């Protein structure tokens, strides 16, 4: 009898294990893979949300920075990970919507290989000019750029970066010609604007706001559809005559495709609960980001929509990327 028990018991436990794994999830630390090195906006958001999720799930949420190939290394890693909810991807807008589309020999498919969990936070860019540029609003900028074609330089953190694509979209919509200077990282273009090596940039709020406040940069417009709470007097580009101009930046959580619905739901609910905490809202606010927390399918639709619209901009502007 004792022998039989010894045989059957492990068997029963083994059979029960998958079911238990789902209802007990998580039973071990969760790894969130990041497409960028420590120290950027993505890293800050991941650490903030990860910290909150750790407390609620009772398991450590580990941040795993896997920079490289514009985000493809991190995406590939998560696409191929076991769909058990222990490996997740911290998605960043262009890393999911632009980079895969222009990379050769892609080993994963954003639409097929991931289950979107939720969009965590969104922000927008500010179009700023050096104070010496004699323009006060978008109309004046367009007129000035048309009168002096190619004489204004704009900066970006690399070809195909959101800063670059936003400027390309601006040129396409206004028929102006600006000269592109690429820098490694956002800090390079911020310095260059302060030194008047470039005259305008679509910069992140965190990189531009402090300089706007001391008058070293002049904001002309913001890139989203809603005005920025931190700059209530600055119109959007959409308001300024460029109907439909909408460039945002966002961060979201994704799981490998095939992750069970129960786990996806648990992760979604936990992430949304963290987003609703007052402390999270405050910190996101200080990064000029808005908490979102939509459903997985809504997040998936956003990725699909932006992938299509960026492809159109890249095609029309004739940007060649590899």
């Amino acid at each position, binding site marked *: 009898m004792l022998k039989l028990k010894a045989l059957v018991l492990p068997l029963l436990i083994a059979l029960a294990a998958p079911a238990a794994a789902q209802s007990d999830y998580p039973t071990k630390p969760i790894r969130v893979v990041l497409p960028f*090195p*420590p*120290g*950027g906006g993505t*890293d*800050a958001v991941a*650490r*903030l949300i990860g*910290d909150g999720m750790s407390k609620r799930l009772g398991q450590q949420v580990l*941040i*795993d*920075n*896997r*920079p*490289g*190939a*514009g985000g*493809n*290394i991190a995406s*590939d890693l998560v696409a191929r990970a076991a769909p058990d909810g222990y490996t997740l991807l911290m998605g960043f807008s262009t890393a999911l919507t632009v980079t895969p589309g*222009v990379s*050769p*020999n892609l080993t994963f498919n954003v639409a097929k290989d991931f289950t979107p969990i939720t969009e965590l936070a969104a922000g927008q860019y500010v179009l700023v000019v050096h104070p010496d540029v004699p323009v006060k609003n978008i109309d004046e900028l367009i007129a000035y750029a048309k009168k002096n074609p*190619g004489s204004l*330089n704009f900066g970006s953190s*690399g*070809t*195909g970066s959101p800063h670059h694509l936003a400027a390309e979209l601006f040129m396409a919509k206004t028929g102006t010609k600006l*000269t*592109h*200077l*690429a*820098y*490694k990282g956002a*800090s390079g273009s*911020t*310095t*260059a604007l*302060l*030194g008047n*090596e470039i005259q305008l940039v679509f910069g992140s709020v*965190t*990189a531009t*706001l*402090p*300089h706007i*406040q*001391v008058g*070293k940069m002049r904001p002309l417009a913001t890139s989203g559809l809603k005005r920025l709470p931190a700059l209530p007097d600055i119109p959007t580009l959409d308001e300024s005559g460029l109907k439909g101009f909408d460039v945002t930046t966002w961060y979201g959580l994704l799981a490998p495709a095939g992750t069970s619905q129960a786990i996806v739901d648990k992760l979604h609910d936990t992430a949304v609960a963290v987003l609703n905490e007052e402390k999270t809202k*405050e*910190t996101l606010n*200080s*990064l000029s980001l808005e908490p979102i927390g939509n459903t997985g399918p809504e997040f998936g639709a956003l990725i699909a929509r932006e992938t299509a619209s960026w492809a159109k901009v890249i095609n029309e502007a004739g940007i*060649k*990327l*590899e």
Partner: protein
Amino acid sequence: MELFSNLALGFSVALSFHGLLYCFVGVMLGTFIGVLPGVGPLVTISVLLPITYNLEPSSALIMLAGIYYGAQYGGSTTAILVNLPGESSSVVTCLDGHQMARRGRAGPALAIAAIGSFIAGTVSNVVVAAFAPALSAWALNFGSPEYFSIMVLGLVTAAVLSHGSMIKAISMIVLGLILGLSGTDVNSGTYRFTFGLPELTDGIDFVVVAMGMFGLAEIIANIQRPEAREIFSSKVSNLLPSRADMKASAWPIARGTALGSILGILPGTGTTISSFMSYALEKKFSRHPERFGHGAIEGVAGPESANNAAAQTAFIPTLTLGIPHNGTMALMLGALTMFGIAPGPQVMTSHPDLFWGLVASMWIGNLMLLVLNLPMLGLWVKMLAVPYRLLYPAIVILSCVGVYTLSNSSLSVVLLAVFGLVGLVFVKLDFAPAPLLLGFILGPMMEENLRRSMVMSRGDPSIFVTRPMSVAMLLIAAILLASMLIPMIRHKKEEAVASDA
């Protein structure tokens, strides 16, 4: 005097119990990870960041900064003892520092590095305190053409670095430039020399090349020469520098400090270039340049002072403008954001305790490093007496772990092995690796700035000679190059005349 009241505020923050405690914790941690080959401050700070959320902002910043400059300090120790440069600025320290260690003078090498760093840290700290806003405004005049020209100057100094054949040095620089091409072209977004490996799209990490070419190559080479392995333990002389050592180091420390303080302000390039340039400068000034590369104490004192001075003044753009110029600085500013302080030009006025507290704590941190490290000299030197069969496998394993943490990629470990073998071939053929490393560091930045300048000028190369600072630097480079080439040509001529007769 406003400066004095500000400094008084700074010292009141830095000398508080918490200020001292976190400064101590920071520099200790920094020294420790700096000594571990390959493990850098970026990884350490990113791991420790969550802990700092529960601290006061000023304590957190003091601790993180302590890790940063403490690591630079610890990196020199590893460079001198086992020829492993974990940071770009300690490559130069390897050249003569490790040669001193091999001659049983590890103690004086480590001590002079500590003393030089402390003096440089003190002076550059005064520079930060007194002139930070003015200097950051001045640094903004440095555009892409100026950066290109200063890098040309840097490359010319690389030729001075090597002892022996000029042709070998130049070919190593060129090889370094070519290796630096691997990765994504920032102007067009095109992948170059990535061989289909996604890990290579950001280029090869400097630490991988440096540790492979210096450390691993040396370890493999030593296996073949048993006598080299015994050298360390057999004749360890005195631990502290002699009076003659101090006298020889005084001017190099002063020149290194001046050079580092100025170049550190230039984001991204300062710390590395300053140590290379200081080495070249000392070799030029020396009456016995042939001693360089064979354990000249000036070759340790100058560059070590330069890189520490630069590491301090590198905080100027970060603190006055809120612009981070490397991952570590970005993390520190990110930590401020978590406390609800937006990094930017207003931090100095809105949170003076933060700015001045940090400035004061950096000086105290430097003092702590000196006081901590001088008594530890004996311990470090004793480490060299550990049998080769135990010490070196441990170093190899730690190096592998270290490079893996750079970007959590196993390819880095494979590349470390590859560069170890390549480095071994160079050791056998008597090619010095330092010029290659400088070419490797400067190449990509030089190309980026060259191409950006050309886009700015709409294709007109005269942009480099019409901007005053740019042309000044190109002229210095030309003079330096001529001063090296003319004696060589004259020498050849004399040889030719001699053979005619």
